[in-house]
């Protein structure tokens, strides 16, 4: 995972042609197979929802709208989950590479949601997260867990 100013980025190379990856990103049944059940349609402006089983901390519902469909290179969706997550943007960018297709997933827009959302970015980012969340906090949590056991 890479953290940008405004969100997170994942990049994966799949040993498959761009057309096949594009189909997996723009077909309701395919999306249901690897992402979540949905009523997606490949049409800019279409509003739809992803519905997964709810579990701790998450209702399982994501409200989306198709923002961009540039076959076979780019799909952008608005993505609105539970609070404190703001309305964010998920963008898939496809690029043919020697051994298949590089898929870049960008999930951005965290800065738009005001201070609580900015904190999400901050926590995922290098600044505060590197010190407290990655070092001090895990150590403290370990000590707490040891106390709870003891």
């Amino acid at each position, binding site marked *: *995972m890479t953290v940008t100013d405004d969100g*997170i980025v*994942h990049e*994966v190379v*799949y040993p*498959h042609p761009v057309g*096949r*990856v594009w*189909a*997996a990103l723009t077909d309701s049944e*395919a999306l249901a*197979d*690897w*992402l979540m059940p949905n009523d997606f349609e490949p049409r800019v402006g279409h509003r739809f929802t992803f519905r997964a089983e709810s579990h*701790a*901390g*998450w209702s399982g519902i994501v409200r989306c709208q198709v923002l961009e469909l540039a076959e076979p290179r780019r799909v952008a969706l608005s993505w609105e989950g*539970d*609070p*404190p*997550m703001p309305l964010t943007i998920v963008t898939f960018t496809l690029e043919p590479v020697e051994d298949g297709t590089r*898929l870049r*997933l960008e*999930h951005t827009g965290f800065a738009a949601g005001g*201070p*609580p959302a*900015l*904190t*999400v970015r*901050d*926590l*995922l980012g290098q600044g*505060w997260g590197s*010190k*407290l*969340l990655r070092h*001090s*906090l895990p150590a*403290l*949590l370990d000590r*707490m867990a040891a106390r709870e056991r003891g």
Partner: protein
Amino acid sequence: MTRTAQHATEDVFTAIAHPVRRRLLDLLAEGEQPVNRLATPFEVSRPAISQHLRVLLQVGLVSERRSGRERRYRLHPDRLRDVRDWLATYDRFWQERLTALGAHLDEESRQ
């Protein structure tokens, strides 16, 4: 997460949204501190620091006790655990889904 727990987590997010408060938590991660020592690294007034500490107190991120004439503050990281758990879930989500996409593509190519 229940509605109440969700609100509580939002409050924690708000509390830690301020850079001074995050810095205070960093200092407190090193152990209990008197308010004087907490105020030293900042170019803001003592009352401002007290105000920030009150916000942290209200959401349960720190506790306060009197020791003689000074007030001492201690970090309660269990409230941060809620936030961290929420973020970890969210990061794992994409990791897992992109792996599932790989499996889906492999399956498609065999047909």
